[in-house]
């Protein structure tokens, strides 16, 4: 039915099956949109946030998707700036995932603010000293870069490509893509960093506060580094998941191996820096505020010392060691384990830097504040997942996302 739009030389599922899948994701999407409208029309009283939890699930989701979407800028950086040409076979998908992650982040931010109609104040009345201003500017600009990177992919659809203007446009954009990618890497460095800076500059919150270099706290650099390290793991994870769902091999092993190896080294060096940061924070920064490490880890069900171990050891050292060894990368189950642990690790890090910061009492006579999200918060957080699934489904069906698919899955002629 839609075969004229499907890339040549590849096989896709029957159209009704595709529609059924879209419908399923569409139901979840509709649920999320309903919750989003509730938040917009009735206000943030629809959430379980409160005056102790000004930042909650959404801000975590924001930070997490941006870290996971970091695969786009880092793969782009490796391909266009460092010159790792093999990554051309993965870059389209990384860009698609980045596009989904960043558009989701912007949507979540639009729901999260109390007065969405005043959202433009952050640009118009910008306070250049605020890390959040830096986030808003770089995030919006980088979303522009991702859109620019995604457009040529859309233009490569079989039917669109037949139109000369679009064919030329796509060709031209590919030609100057290195410039866009470099700009994207520049913007990413700053917005990933400033997301880390958001927590790091809070000198009224000893758990989050970090010293640093010039105007940037150490979390600035750690966030950029971790996004570059863990983002590719999320890209690999999704490729492997898509391969499982489609039952096809979509990317050659050497490409995955290269990205996994680079990611392994990045995680290894990052976690080394993170351990030093945590150690210095625990023995110097925290002590100078009259507190000790264990003041921040209580015996409640959420924030015991286990969360630090889960973040650094299970979600950091383990995946790094697996990805650094050839045997680990070559074993399907170990690779799966590594990328899943890595994604969990970076998500825990973002959780800790948002929600644990809010949970810990600063005044000695206050108690821990625990919070659980309302269904509206959960639905609006799942919304981007459904939207992402739909966009991946459509893009995979109609656009040449995986250049190696044709070669890896030849269609037998009858």
């Amino acid at each position, binding site marked *: 039915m839609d075969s004229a739009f499907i890339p040549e030389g590849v096989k896709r599922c029957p159209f009704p099956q595709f529609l059924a899948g879209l419908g399923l994701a569409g139901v979840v999407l509709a649920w999320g949109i309903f919750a989003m409208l509730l938040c917009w029309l009735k206000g943030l009283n629809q959430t379980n946030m409160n005056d102790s939890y000004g930042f909650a699930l959404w801000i975590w989701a924001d930070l997490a998707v941006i870290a996971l979407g970091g695969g786009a800028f880092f793969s782009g950086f490796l391909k266009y700036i460092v010159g790792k040409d093999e990554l051309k076979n993965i870059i389209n998908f990384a860009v698609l995932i980045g596009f989904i992650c960043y558009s989701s982040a912007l949507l979540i931010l639009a729901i999260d603010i109390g007065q969405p109609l005043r959202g433009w104040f952050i*640009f*118009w*009345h*910008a306070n*250049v*000293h605020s890390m959040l*201003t*830096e986030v808003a*500017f*770089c995030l919006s*600009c980088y979303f*522009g*870069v991702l859109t*620019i990177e995604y457009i040529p992919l859309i233009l490569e659809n079989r039917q669109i490509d037949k139109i*000369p*203007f*679009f064919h*030329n*446009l796509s*060709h*031209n*954009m590919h030609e*100057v893509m290195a*410039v*866009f990618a470099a*700009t994207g890497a*520049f*913007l990413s460095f*700053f917005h990933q960093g400033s997301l880390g800076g958001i927590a790091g500059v809070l000198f009224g919150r000893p758990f989050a506060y970090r010293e640093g270099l010039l105007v940037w706290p150490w979390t600035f650099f750690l966030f950029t580094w971790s996004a570059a390290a863990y983002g590719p793991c999320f890209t690999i994870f999704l490729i492997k998941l898509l391969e499982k769902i489609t039952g096809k091999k979509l990317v050659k092993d050497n490409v995955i191996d290269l990205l996994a190896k680079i990611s392994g080294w990045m995680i290894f060096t990052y976690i080394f820096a993170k351990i030093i940061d945590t150690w210095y924070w625990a023995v110097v920064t925290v002590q100078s505020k009259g507190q000790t490490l264990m003041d921040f880890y209580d015996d409640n069900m959420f924030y015991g010392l286990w969360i630090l171990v889960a973040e650094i050891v299970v979600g950091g050292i383990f995946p790094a060691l697996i990805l650094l060894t050839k045997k680990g990368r070559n074993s399907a189950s170990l690779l799966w384990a590594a990328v899943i642990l890595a994604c969990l690790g970076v998500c825990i890090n973002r959780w800790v830097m948002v929600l644990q910061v809010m949970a810990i009492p600063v005044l000695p006579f206050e108690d821990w504040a625990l919070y659980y999200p309302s269904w509206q918060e959960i639905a609006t957080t799942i919304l981007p997942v459904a939207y992402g699934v739909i966009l991946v489904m459509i893009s995979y069906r109609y656009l040449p996302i995986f250049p190696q698919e044709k070669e890896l899955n030849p269609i037998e002629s009858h």
Partner: protein
Amino acid sequence: MFPFISFEWVWDIEHVVFMGGLWYAVSILGIGMAYCIIKAAIDKKEV
């Protein structure tokens, strides 16, 4: 955000560096896209 237009604009190092970086990035993207679109239109005519 805008020099000469926004009343909050101050000619200090923070504004110049921060906003300078922003406008620099936006300019590259804008000029890059304009180049691609114009060239595509010209190439189309030549074909």
